[in-house]
């Protein structure tokens, strides 16, 4: 059986030490299967974004383990970590982080070229990702030439281009109106169904969380509840973690 796309196992994240220590996460576990969309909700400061940073290897946990496709991030060298992130993990943020001086196509090609892919192949992959994200061409325009919803589609194409099969989305709808925001979440849902991409969606909007197969609620850095998983979802308690 394939390993889950993401396993977060009993992680703790502390910032500072002694009297100034802040616990952002305490004993959080989360498993996301291939093709599963999991939404993470909770009040401001509950640890949603920290959880996403740990899941993507942007920060190490203070305790516990994070596994991406069965690989424990704890044992990776910086070069291995960078390679795993480039090959398997895509990020979508509220702030799009598109490079303004590159065209839409070049923005999506960028992670592939950084990984050493030849330009012609990278171009073909990027065009497929942009088409898959439902963005009509021409793609040789700059990010500012597109609407907010279209820019988010470029960001999603960049996050999913190539073989990336885990997308971490932090409030990707934050800057969009309701109709465009719904289209973006609809697109993420389609990616799960069509390509088997696993998506973790941090949101404070119940409307968008309702697209998820499972919704996990955080409060004060702990998981306080979650909705029942659908058939496609993986039950956290059933996953044995090999250490």
């Amino acid at each position, binding site marked *: 059986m394939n390993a889950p796309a993401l396993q977060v196992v009993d992680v703790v994240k502390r910032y500072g030490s002694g009297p100034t220590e802040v616990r952002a996460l305490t004993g959080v576990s989360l498993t996301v299967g291939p093709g599963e969309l999991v939404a993470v909700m909770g009040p401001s400061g509950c640890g949603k974004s920290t959880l996403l940073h740990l899941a993507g290897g942007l920060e190490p946990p203070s305790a516990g383990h994070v596994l991406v496709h069965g690989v424990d991030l704890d044992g990776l060298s910086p070069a291995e970590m960078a390679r795993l992130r480039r090959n398997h993990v895509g990020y979508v943020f509220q702030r799009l982080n598109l490079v303004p001086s590159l065209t839409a196509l070049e923005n999506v090609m960028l992670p592939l070229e950084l990984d050493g892919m030849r330009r012609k192949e990278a171009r073909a992959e990027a065009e497929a990702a942009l088409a898959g994200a439902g963005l009509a061409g021409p793609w040789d325009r700059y990010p500012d030439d597109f609407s907010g919803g279209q820019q988010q589609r470029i960001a999603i194409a960049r996050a999913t281009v190539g073989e990336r099969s885990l997308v971490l989305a932090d409030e990707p709808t934050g800057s969009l109106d309701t109709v465009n925001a719904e289209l973006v979440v609809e697109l993420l849902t389609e990616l799960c169904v069509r390509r088997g991409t696993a998506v973790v969606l941090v949101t404070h909007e119940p409307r968008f969380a309702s697209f998820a197969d499972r919704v996990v609620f955080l409060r004060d850095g702990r998981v306080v*509840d979650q909705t029942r998983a659908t058939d496609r979802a993986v039950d956290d308690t059933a996953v044995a973690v090999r250490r």
Partner: protein
Amino acid sequence: MTIRPGLLALLASGPSHGYQLKTGFEAATGGMWKLNVGQVYTTLDRLGRDGCVVVDVHDDQKRYAITAAGREELESWWQALPGDDSPPRDELVMKVLLAIAAAPQAALDVVTGQRTALTEVLQRRRRALRAEARGGADLVARLAADAAVVRAEGDLRWLDLCEARLLELHRTTEPNSHPVTNQEAHR
């Protein structure tokens, strides 16, 4: 609301038989409100008694047509604001307020449980809506489903506010402790 203004609204576009009004009402409200045909005829009788509709026989069936008085009543209904003279007394609000009165700490459990259950309802509605959209759902069905989603969102937002205010209260009264809820204690 009662079905009375709904029947007048349908009759405003032309005369109709009782059963046509039943099916027309259900279609116009996106299947949200199923009518008993007896209820339709009782309401039509009352509208006739009040001079809002007249009856003739067409193809051996009673056919109803709106009158000027009926159009006047309908126009008043379009203009009237939804009733807001009584405070909201739905079960969710009462449940949370009574839980807070009983034990503020345990009220967080009630908020959490209600929110999870309501989110599951929202997820089910979303799946149904997506399935209908794939089948080419019409505008009325989509808007009816949207209305259900938006109302559930309203309840969820209120529960979020309940949680935030309860946590604020907890931090004010016990600044150095984590509010362990009954659910967490049982994990």
